[in-house]
């Protein structure tokens, strides 16, 4: 009965359009009242759910991303990507993906990636005779790469949801190969669609141009080296690196590029506050929801249930993947990480899956969910930037979904893709 109230209230509120954070909070509130416990616990969980030091990486990475988009760092990365891979079949599609790899190395937000790179690339693609749906599709699905490559604040959310005992540095490192693999398979999909639709090939601009654009983009790319080098050499911790990213982005845009003026700064700051408040309120309310799930023994019951269904870890992983994909279709990423980690991680671990590996699977899986209707924040951003309807975008997105799904399967069933790189640092 308690579970019926919890999920019933949640679903009803979700359907009538109540903001997700309040769906989580109010359904927890209703259930607590039904059980007869003091409701104060809902608000205590909300408060302590957001009062976690490691969560600070979220506002910082989002802030750094805003500063970089408004301070011209993103545009220079796109220009460099264009000179590097623009001459391949479906050139601008390849540029879009390569730009996501470069941008993903300095930002962990798929939505920021889609709006920054989509905003720069989609109009250019339109102008050069590419179909808009192609531009939107490439932009949307390739923005998942930003989640996989370090820095990724979603990995930090995962580590916290798992009780804070999984090394963030390991998670960051574990995402690198799967992120690059995803880029490769998407490039293949982009090539395939471009060939079928007979898109033009741009001439190579020459190594001189590449060098020139590389110098232009170097301060942005250096951020990757500074974050990674700083963490690995013990100057700051993985979560502190997010703050360093902000300071560095401010420094580069204000002093080196001279693109950061007071008004840009205010816009970047308030935009970061808005996004962060939205994301973290969901995380806080999900902490209440998650507390109730634990109190009602949902994870333990689910583990027993899964063990009844199958003793085969491969099958259980597939089952978890499918459930996550379905959930991801309906809900957004950060609340899902917070809600599903305490439920599925014990299941996965009971079947011998490494928690770092599981984190990579989870992020990639939920990342795909960001690109699928009906609730796909990144898909919405892509469609808004390209000015097409969600339906027009999704009709032709299948090759890219397929590439992402194939990568997900590889990442799921080849643990060394995730675990080999971190093992080198142990």
């Amino acid at each position, binding site marked *: 009965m308690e579970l019926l109230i919890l999920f019933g209230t949640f679903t009803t509120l979700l359907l009538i359009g109540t903001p997700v954070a309040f769906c989580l909070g109010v359904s927890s509130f209703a259930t607590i009242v039904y059980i007869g*416990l003091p409701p104060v616990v809902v608000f*205590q*969980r909300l408060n302590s759910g957001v009062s976690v030091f490691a969560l600070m990486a979220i506002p910082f990475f989002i802030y750094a991303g805003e500063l970089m988009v408004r301070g011209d760092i993103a545009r220079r990365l796109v220009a460099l990507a264009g000179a590097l891979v623009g001459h391949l079949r479906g050139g601008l599609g390849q540029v879009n993906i390569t730009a996501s790899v470069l941008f993903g190395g300095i930002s962990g937000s798929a939505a920021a990636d889609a709006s920054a790179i989509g905003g720069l690339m989609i109009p250019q693609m339109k102008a050069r005779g590419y179909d808009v749906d192609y531009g939107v599709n490439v932009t949307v699905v390739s923005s998942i790469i930003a989640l996989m490559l370090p820095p990724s604040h979603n990995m930090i959310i995962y580590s916290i949801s798992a009780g*804070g*005992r999984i090394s963030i540095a390991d998670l960051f490192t574990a995402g690198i190969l799967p992120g690059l693999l995803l880029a490769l398979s998407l490039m293949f999909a982009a090539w395939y669609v471009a060939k079928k639709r007979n898109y033009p090939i741009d001439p190579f601009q020459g190594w001189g141009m590449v060098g020139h654009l590389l110098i232009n983009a170097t301060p942005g790319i250096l951020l990757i080296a500074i974050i990674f080098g700083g963490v690995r050499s013990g100057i700051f*911790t993985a979560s502190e690196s997010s703050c360093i990213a902000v300071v560095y982005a401010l420094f580069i845009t204000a002093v080196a590029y001279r693109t950061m003026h007071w008004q840009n700064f205010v816009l970047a700051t308030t935009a970061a506050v808005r996004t962060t408040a939205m994301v973290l309120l969901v995380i806080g309310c999900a902490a209440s929801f998650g*507390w109730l799930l634990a109190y009602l023994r949902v994870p333990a019951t689910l583990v027993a249930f899964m063990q009844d269904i199958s003793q085969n870890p491969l099958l259980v992983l597939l089952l978890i993947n499918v459930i996550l994909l379905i959930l991801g279709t309906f809900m957004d990423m950060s609340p899902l990480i917070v809600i599903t980690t305490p439920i599925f991680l014990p299941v996965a671990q009971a079947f011998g899956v490494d928690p770092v590996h599981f984190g990579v699977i989870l992020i990639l899986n939920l990342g795909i969910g960001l690109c699928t209707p009906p609730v796909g924040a990144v898909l919405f951003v892509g469609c808004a930037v390209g000015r097409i309807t969600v339906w027009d975008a999704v009709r032709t997105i299948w090759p890219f979904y397929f590439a992402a799904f194939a990568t997900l399967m590889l990442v799921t069933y080849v643990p060394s893709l995730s675990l080999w790189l971190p093992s080198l640092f142990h």
Partner: protein
Amino acid sequence: ADIVLRSSDTHPDGYPTVEAVKYLGELVKERSNGRIEIEVFHSAQLGQEKDTIEQTQFGVIDMNRVSLGPFNNIIEETQVPSLPYIFRSVDHMHKVMDGPIGQEILDAFSDHDLVGLVFYDAGSRSFYNRQKPVENMADLSGMKFRVMQSDLFVDMVNALGANATPMPYGEVYSSIQTGVIDGAENNWPSFESSGHFEVAGYYTLDEHLIVPEVLVMSKKSWDKLSAEDQALIRQAAKDSVPHMRKLWAEREAASEAKVREAGVKIVSDIDKTPFIEAMKPVYEKYVTSDKLKDLVARIQATE
């Protein structure tokens, strides 16, 4: 069962404190003929210690196994067993906490909507680091040690000439590995289970903290029980202590063996006198009221 008591623990399943409360649950179930049961929520499923203490005070959960650290700023008396080098050995701590002084500290919980049941063991905490074998205070000088976010522990480490660096527990492993900090401090089981021994190769057994942990009950839940049931739970909690200590000793020995096997260099015979001397200003800062001075004096006088 008529009564189900929910108990929280931040340690993982199988940890001595978790197993001790499960054992307590078996005793209670057996002695009440199945009327009362205890459900243990391990691995911080219901929240971190600070949160679950509040939940226990509000009567949201019924029982809680917690460290004394989070109580230091709430219940004055709990500062005393948390003082560095206050106990000469684990045996000394047992003698004090099993006796009237321990009872006095347990009684102090009742002013804060809690009922203190028993103390459980948490071994003794010592320093480990990645740099060098620490044999005296000079060796500690300038080294960065992670401590819990507590004024007392920060002041303790700083008074030893080291550099106290509060940091979330989850970041300690990689921070020692990369050199953000030089080390941390903990007991054998945590040194081992956290994997910190893989990155910190030197362990100095200075045993600066021998702080027991405490099992408390919510006053709200407690008052709902009949006097007989209260007595039953109190007795069963007392009876779970020897079992807990046996589990703890086994766990400690197993962890020590594993750490030693990994080749960690252990410094065990150090002269603690200068360390204890250095604590004078810390004691002056924290042992201020007459009540605390009296408790400290009586503990030091306990043979």
